[in-house]
């Protein structure tokens, strides 16, 4: 725990289409890897002490993006604060955790996996996978896989934010790191759609 919590994105810049594409690609891929009903990325807004849904794949995709809730709450909150991944199963009879959040979002999962998006000692947010396939539930190896994937996503997020184009500057040649990332994203998308 005790990571430095910093906003993953500078506050109030115009939305970066590459960022949106990256986050959507991450949740689409996570959902495919785990055969899940849904996957989402919540980014931390330190100033507001809130987690914000930035990308959703599957259940809730249409209305969840932009929703926010207190960062200290629930499993996602614990994951962000502790910097540790978590998998839970058998949530159906639980009145707990993000249930109030889940109810407001219209989807109550029975199983949930969550891993922090960490770069260095900063937590950028949380990657969640909801209702993964029964084969992919609650085991330590799934926890490892999710953590690996979340680490990769966090690196990509970091690259994108540090190489973000400045809105007011004249168009510069595309940053190679950014271009490479976008190429990989397009490839991942294509594979998922096949």
């Amino acid at each position: 725990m005790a990571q430095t919590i910093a906003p993953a994105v500078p506050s109030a810049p115009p939305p970066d289409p590459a960022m949106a594409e990256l986050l959507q690609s991450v949740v689409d891929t996570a959902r495919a890897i785990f055969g899940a009903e849904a996957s989402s990325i919540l980014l931390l807004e330190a100033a507001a002490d809130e987690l914000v849904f930035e990308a959703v794949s599957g259940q809730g995709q249409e209305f969840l993006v932009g929703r926010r809730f207190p960062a200290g709450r629930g499993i996602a909150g614990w994951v962000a604060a502790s910097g540790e991944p978590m998998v839970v199963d058998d949530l159906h009879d639980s009145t707990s955790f993000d249930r109030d959040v889940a109810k407001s979002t219209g989807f109550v999962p029975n199983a949930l996996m969550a891993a922090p998006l960490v770069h260095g000692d900063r937590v950028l947010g949380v990657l969640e996978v909801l209702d993964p396939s029964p084969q992919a539930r609650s085991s330590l190896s799934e926890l490892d896989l999710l953590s690996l994937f979340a680490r990769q996503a966090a690196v990509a997020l970091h690259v994108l934010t540090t190489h973000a184009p400045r809105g007011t500057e004249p168009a510069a040649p595309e940053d190679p790191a950014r271009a490479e990332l976008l190429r990989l994203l397009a490839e991942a998308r294509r594979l998922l759609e096949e």
Partner: protein
Amino acid sequence: MTTGQRPAPAPGLTWGLRGRGPADVPVEADHPPEPPEGGLLGGTGRGVRVCVVDSGVERDHPMVGPVAQSWRVFKDDDGVHVEETDEGDACGHGTACAGIIRRTAPDCELSSVRVLGERFSGSGDILLEGIRWAVRQRFDVVNLSLSTSRDRFVEELRRLADEAYFQQTVIVASAHNTHVESFPWRFSSVISVGSHQEDDPDLHLYNPEPPVEFFAPGQRVQVAWLGGTSIRTSGNSFATPFVAGLCARILSSRPRLTPFQLKNALYLSAANVRVHGSR
């Protein structure tokens, strides 16, 4: 040798035995319990004070039972503070840990220090203060299914872990779930725990390649959760309170064991440790 002005030693601190002999330093000790043929080691935890430093513990949960005392650590403009609280658990994680300790050592006294569930900023300070509080309350066993990767907390954490060790408070600390260097589980003064994947809920193993010293059940563990419910979950977080519970059991049957004796008792009773090929 030392040169220059040094502050006077703190009262009671000993650098050497001067003007006294063996008869002046008698130690009434306990022998570690014999490793059991099967089942769990030691007593029921009676008389042993255990503290869970985590997200709080839900009161009156059927899998947790009574919680003796609950505190929360919080930060405001004046700094970091500790106060008694009846807020319970912000997320379920602390309650899960408490339930595993209760299952393993049913008669121990359980308390909670909540270091998660408040605002994020300064959570490292809050963790540190929570551990400090638990150590200064002189709990027998402190369960810490958390760690920090921030370097600036390492020295203070090490000092606290040593303070705990020498005052006979055992800190049982989770290894990180991913390949992350974090603390205090890396310190030899604590008992560090990771997960094994066996189904036996009472099995603990010694790791011949530390720093993680022990492995305990951490996969698909049924744990207490919020609202009096239970869930299944996996991770080192849930292996750790099993070992904390074992420590409480052992201490309840041998209350004078030192932390190094306790670690030895865990070592000798680990299923994979064979003394002279006897097991």
